């Protein structure tokens, strides 16, 4: 408890006090309180919390908000929050906080549904289309109050900025309420029907299965990312000094694409294309890849085949779609001097132009066998100089804007230098130093 800042302690204490005030009528109410419903719903809520990764809390609380007056709804939320598994210490403060937060949210939702919008506590067939709106409103209020209170504790206890605490998680928090509002209404409706509570509780089963599937989906997606990393790892087996390069190119490609307004599945595809752009190097003989010193024309020709090998390897991955072209064409240049096909200008697919800039940028800002890492501003100046001839100026400008906004974390560890005598840079001696421009660390998503 004492590990928390004073502001957080005060905030939590206020919330607990407010929740207690909300629930007080139940203690005084005596026989008027519908104890049967309160106990059953609270038990279901608590059971739902203990189930592994099947959050039933939201639909149960919405059903409670529809069925019960505010004070009783506030009590329903308490047992579930108290038995819920808590990952970090101080465990009991967290549990208490969750109980207070859920109680307040449930009470508010119940107030909005009943006294606020005047919907009946025992809905029946006659009130069906009309009661939908109050039910959805109750769901939204429940989610909104919960999210606002959560944001408050993030601000006071962890010192987050108001923007990250409140604005960012809001849409994701409100969306489920739109679905669960009608579900809660349905539960209430069946509860008061001749079929009674067993039928009402059946409503919750599909909801819980749905969240179970979503959880499996999340895990499968993580596994997929691991698989992609394994592909990259396979390249590392052959060409060790590019370690980390692929991931950084993927990251830089995403930064550029976001500036260009690309989103959704296309963005994901581009991230994978950026990460896998050098996959074709697997097909280049290890001896050529690791060769110290100048390459013969023959060897260079072999290396220049790697985009085609890479494209061939990812041919079966359906969702990459247009991003596959990025792997094939990421060495094309705007003036047509690139390879493998010597495409020029707008013949080069958009994604390939993105990956080309990201690739060049990371190659310059990390240490290679033939050159040392350059600071970010120097690299950007170089890119700017070559934009129009090699790179698409739009992509370069987007990268500059994105780095201004998000910063860049270049290669952390400089691998031991390999003795490559030939340096075809005439811009050597670029001091290896901390990157100057906006090097805030990449946040990597809300934690």
């Amino acid at each position, binding site marked *: 408890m004492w590990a928390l800042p004073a502001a957080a302690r005060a905030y939590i204490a206020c919330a607990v006090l407010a929740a207690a005030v909300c629930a007080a009528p139940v203690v005084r109410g005596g026989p008027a309180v519908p104890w049967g419903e309160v106990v059953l719903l609270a038990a279901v809520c608590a059971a739902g919390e203990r189930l592994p990764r099947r959050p039933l809390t939201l639909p149960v609380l919405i059903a409670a908000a529809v069925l019960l007056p505010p004070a009783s709804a506030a009590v329903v939320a308490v047992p579930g929050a108290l038995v819920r598994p808590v990952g970090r210490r101080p465990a009991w403060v967290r549990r208490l906080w969750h109980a207070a937060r859920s109680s307040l949210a449930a009470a508010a939702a119940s107030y909005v549904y009943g006294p606020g919008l005047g919907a009946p506590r025992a809905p029946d067939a006659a009130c069906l289309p009309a009661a939908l709106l109050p039910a959805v409103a109750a769901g939204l209020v429940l989610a909104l109050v919960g999210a606002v209170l959560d944001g408050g504790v993030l601000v006071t206890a962890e010192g987050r900025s108001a923007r990250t605490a409140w604005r960012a998680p809001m849409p994701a928090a409100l969306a489920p309420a739109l679905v669960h509002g009608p579900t809660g209404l349905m539960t209430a409706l069946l509860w008061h*029907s001749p*079929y009674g509570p067993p039928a009402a509780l059946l409503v919750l089963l599909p909801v819980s299965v749905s969240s179970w599937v979503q959880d499996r989906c999340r895990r499968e997606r993580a596994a997929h990312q691991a698989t992609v990393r394994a592909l990259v790892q396979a390249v590392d087996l052959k060409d060790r000094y590019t370690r980390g390069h692929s991931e950084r190119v993927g990251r830089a490609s995403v930064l550029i694409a976001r500036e260009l307004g690309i989103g959704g599945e296309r963005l994901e595809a581009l991230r994978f294309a950026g990460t896998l752009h050098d996959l074709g190097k697997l*097909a280049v*003989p290890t001896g050529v890849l690791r060769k110290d010193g*100048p390459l013969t024309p023959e060897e260079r020709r072999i290396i220049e085949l790697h985009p085609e090998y890479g494209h061939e390897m990812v041919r*079966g991955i*359906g969702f990459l779609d247009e991003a596959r072209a990025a792997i094939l064409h990421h060495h094309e240049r705007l003036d047509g001097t690139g390879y493998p096909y010597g495409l020029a200008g707008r013949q080069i697919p958009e994604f390939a132009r993105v990956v080309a800039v990201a690739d060049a940028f990371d190659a310059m800002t990390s240490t290679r066998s033939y050159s040392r890492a350059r600071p970010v501003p120097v690299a950007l100046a170089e890119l700017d100089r070559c934009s129009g001839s090699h790179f698409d100026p739009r992509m370069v400008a987007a990268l500059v804007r994105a780095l201004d906004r998000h910063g860049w974390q270049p290669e952390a560890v400089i691998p031991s230098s390999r003795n490559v005598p030939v340096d075809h840079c005439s811009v050597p001696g670029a001091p290896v130093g901390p990157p100057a421009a906006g090097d805030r660390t990449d946040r990597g998503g809300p934690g």
Partner: protein
Amino acid sequence: MRTRPPQDLTCCDAPACRAAADPSAPPGDAPPGACPAASTAQAGPERPGAEAPPGPSRGVRPPGPQAPQAPTAAPAPWPGAGCGLLRPGRALPPRHAPDADERAPREAAPDAPEWARPGGPGRARAGGLARGVHVVAGLTAVLALAWTAWRGVAQPHVALAYGVLIALGEAARRTPRGAGAGARETAPVGSAGTLAYALLGEVGGEPASHGAAQVVAVVLGATLAGAVGRPPALDRLARRVLNAAFAAVCFQPLHGCAPSPSYPLLLLLLLALTALCDAVLAAALTRSRTGGGPYGPLLREELRALPGVGSAIGAGGVVMALAVAAAGLWALPVFCLPLLVTQLSVHRYEAVCATRRQTIASLARATEIAGYTRPGHARRVATLGRAVGRELGLSGADLTVVEHAALMHDIGQLSLPVPVPAGATEPLPPEERRRIALLGGAVVRRTGVSPDVVLVVERQADPYRDQPLTARIVRTVNAYDDLAGDPACGPLRALERLRLATAHDHEPRVVEALAAVLARGGPAPSGP
């Protein structure tokens, strides 16, 4: 060969740029003064696909060799090194030889007697069974349609509401791209709507008057209407019709029961029975599709899939029937919302699974394109391994382990500076093979697949007694594919050689299962 014109240097002598765009290109190797056009012309013919017009076909692979092989990048081709898998030094005890000689021709011969081909008779019966199921479902549908047409549609608005719901659920159904044999098509909204209509006893307090025949007719019509343009698989349609008929007929005695809290439990019991019958049917159909093999594991697989999405479908069906009984047809759209969410998340999950399978497949293809293994090797080993695993009665999870491990079993070879001839690691010394297997295991561990897959990849070079069954399958099938692809050996002799190696390297049971699968004409094409 690929040269940079002098003006290139002035425009961007930018070593950094060049370095970035072409990290492997030191400037020194460009003959001075070579013009870009000449260099292109020079490079052109040797490049795969360079003859393709660059413009319109960008992003599309031009017609050309599937896996471009650069002259020096090309690994040693598959030399006719004979069946190098079993070197004379590791020859097997002679006592196995006559045994193998006696069995090999019989097992592999296509005209072997039925009793000699374990899967043979079973397959014929199962194919007939699938046809039988289709015929029964068709008869049921025709009878139901005729009956409904004769008697007229009772309570048409209810029929229409449920029909629209089922049709919408079908329309929202998607088959994930690239889904393999393991994918299970699910349409929770459509299935739950079907069950709900079959179990509907009342509508808003008034008794429902539709009979079992009308249920089947409406369900069939709605399913077909929702799948316009994408005809549903015959198996699915047959299952749905039989399911609806079964549930509706079983529900008839409950029709008119007074509503009470025990009523939902009765309905649930009925649904559990329906689900059980459906699983039995589905397993039988799968078996007839995949060509024989033991029935038990298939049924177990079907039953294991039930508690997940199946329970949501069942509960959804019951609730939709009860809610409509209590609150009228308005309950239908309201309750279809959570089911729709379930359906969408199932679809997304299936899409992610399919993508992951494709990514694993391209990891497998990497070794082939890199010239370490023969084209299609990993895919063949995976398909054949799955068939052998099914023959041995492995469950779904183990089959997935076999498939994934087979796809990735050669990854370790990428660490070799020079590819092994023909990608066959068997002739290498055992220590070297173990080292490669361990390296492969280290990469596979990163893929996030289950530890069992890693174990199989790591242990693939061990003698079979030290391996789990899945690894034995991968090892044997891998050896078979290496041998059979060798023109000097061929499938028959390959099988014979495997039989000769059953003392130490290959488990006899697995080799026999492989022979059984091959005797049936190889693994069945995956998927319906």
